């Protein structure tokens, strides 16, 4: 027996929190897939650690979304009982791990953004979001450092690692534009000082990427075609498989406490 999806009243604030929560959960889940299978034990530790930070961020954001919605939902219902069309994460974070280069480039693109984003969000007039941002910013700074160091090692390592890192950059580039997009609902929050405009961060994000890529002897793509859709539930085919695994227990055994 399958449990039906929950309904969520997506007010701008609820949707805002859900989108960031979904980013954190899906990326955390992807990273957790490495646990026990990383290229070295130190990376089993590091990737698990980053995954834990992200899952922690997701839990706080889901709880806040549930509170803002004021219905009967909670962090687990929001995570486990929405289907692929209800998920609001960036396409970037749901992309499969691929090889270690692909995982680290995905992390680098995201963390370079998240670091700037959460730092700016510390000034939100919403005290809960400002507090979540303060914690997330500290974590993101470490995630960015870890990813940057690996991009440099891989780019300036061997011919093979260079080729793999460059291929990952070329492959994932088209998923980065979505991070800076804003819709009407979010614009309302921006005007109210609750959210910040991610578009204003793109220049600095690009600078971080260029600096690291240059040290890594890697090249950022010139093409500016960007895939979008994650924020409104139009995902890649990958997310459905991830969710079927993530949600399998809650879907198989409806309504139980674990």
């Amino acid at each position: 027996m399958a449990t039906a999806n929950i309904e969520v009243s997506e007010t701008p604030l609820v949707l805002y929190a859900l989108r960031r929560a979904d980013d954190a959960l899906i990326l955390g889940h992807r990273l957790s897939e490495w646990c026990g299978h990383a290229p070295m034990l130190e990376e089993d530790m590091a990737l698990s650690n980053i995954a834990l930070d992200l899952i922690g961020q997701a839990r706080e954001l889901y709880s806040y979304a549930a509170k803002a919605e004021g219905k009967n939902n909670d962090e687990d219902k929001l995570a486990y009982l929405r289907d692929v069309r209800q998920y609001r994460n960036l396409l970037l974070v749901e992309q499969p791990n691929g090889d270690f280069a692909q995982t680290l480039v995905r992390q680098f693109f995201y963390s370079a953004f998240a670091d700037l984003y959460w730092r700016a969000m510390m000034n939100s007039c919403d005290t809960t979001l400002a507090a979540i941002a303060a914690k997330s910013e500290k974590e993101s700074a470490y995630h960015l450092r870890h990813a940057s160091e690996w991009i440099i090692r891989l780019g300036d390592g061997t011919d093979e690692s260079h080729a793999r890192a460059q291929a990952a950059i070329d492959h994932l580039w088209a998923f980065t534009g979505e991070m800076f997009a804003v819709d009407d609902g979010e614009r309302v929050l921006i005007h109210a000082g609750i959210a910040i405009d991610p578009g204003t961060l793109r220049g600095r994000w690009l600078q971080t990427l260029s600096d690291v890529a240059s040290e890594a002897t890697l090249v950022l793509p010139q093409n500016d075609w960007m895939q979008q859709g994650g924020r409104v539930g139009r995902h890649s085919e990958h997310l459905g498989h991830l969710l079927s695994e993530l949600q399998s227990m809650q879907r198989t055994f409806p309504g139980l406490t674990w």
Partner: protein
Amino acid sequence: MYTQALNTAETDDRGLEDAGRAAQFQARIDAEERIEPNDWMPAAYRKTLTRQISQHAHSEIVGMLPEGNWITRAPSLRRKAALLAKVQDECGHGLYLYAAAETLGTSREELVDAMLAGKAKYSSIFNYPTLTWADIGTIGWLVDGAAIMNQIPLCRCSYGPYARAMIRVCKEESFHQRQGYEIMLTLCRGSEEQKAMAQDALNRWWWPVLMMFGPPDSTSQHSDTSTKWKIKRFSNDELRQKFVDATVPQAQYLGLTIPDPGMTQDADGHWRYSEIDWTEFKQVLAGNGPCNRDRIAARRKAHAEGAWVREAAASYAAKRAHRQTAQAAE
């Protein structure tokens, strides 16, 4: 997570070494002094410890696989985070133990290679599959419980780095054990389906967990030297009995039945268990457990697929060192 009593006897080669030093060494052990990496030690002591500590490290690392199997399917976000943190702890134990083993003169690479080549053992318990979420609770409760029973005495092991590693590891294991028991408690207070899941997991794990303590004392080959060197302080059967005595009341509290109809309680309070199927144990050690091939294949795959990453890191480090030297020379 756990070291198992798998060591075979080392030949006593002290005759070839300085008899005076050997006597001094034993006197230090008898006086409960800790042996440190730079101290003189008999070659057989070094070899026994290298083997035991590295087996323990391999067990931590292979032990990540059965539990890791449920990270992506944990039933709530809280459970997911707790399980991920637990498996990460096991990895940390592995790293810590490899470092302790390295103080005896063998590199982590050599030790890992021996495991991947199938020459070094790891705990037999990890060759069983985790089929349901209740297995995650059961592993925490019983496997970590057995590990603690075995490792508490190792906190007083004569070799300093191992003893100190065990103190830290035991603290974390004890947390894992409580976490596992709490998962079981939640299941046992849940639906009929959840209770059945918990009982089924206990049925499958009980006997393999008892085997974790190693062969019965009547057939154990190595206890004499290990005991004399204060690496081992209790026999396999003594530890197994302690574990059973501690666990039976816990199972009763959960309302679960230990899958041993012949179990009885002595007048002195000890729970006497039925004969263990040592054929199964030997089969698992020989590579014929349900997951032996999968476990080693997973470790080999991670190692092989990570080779280019490790090469890249080494190459980059060499380039950077070269550039720094060149800069300094300018």
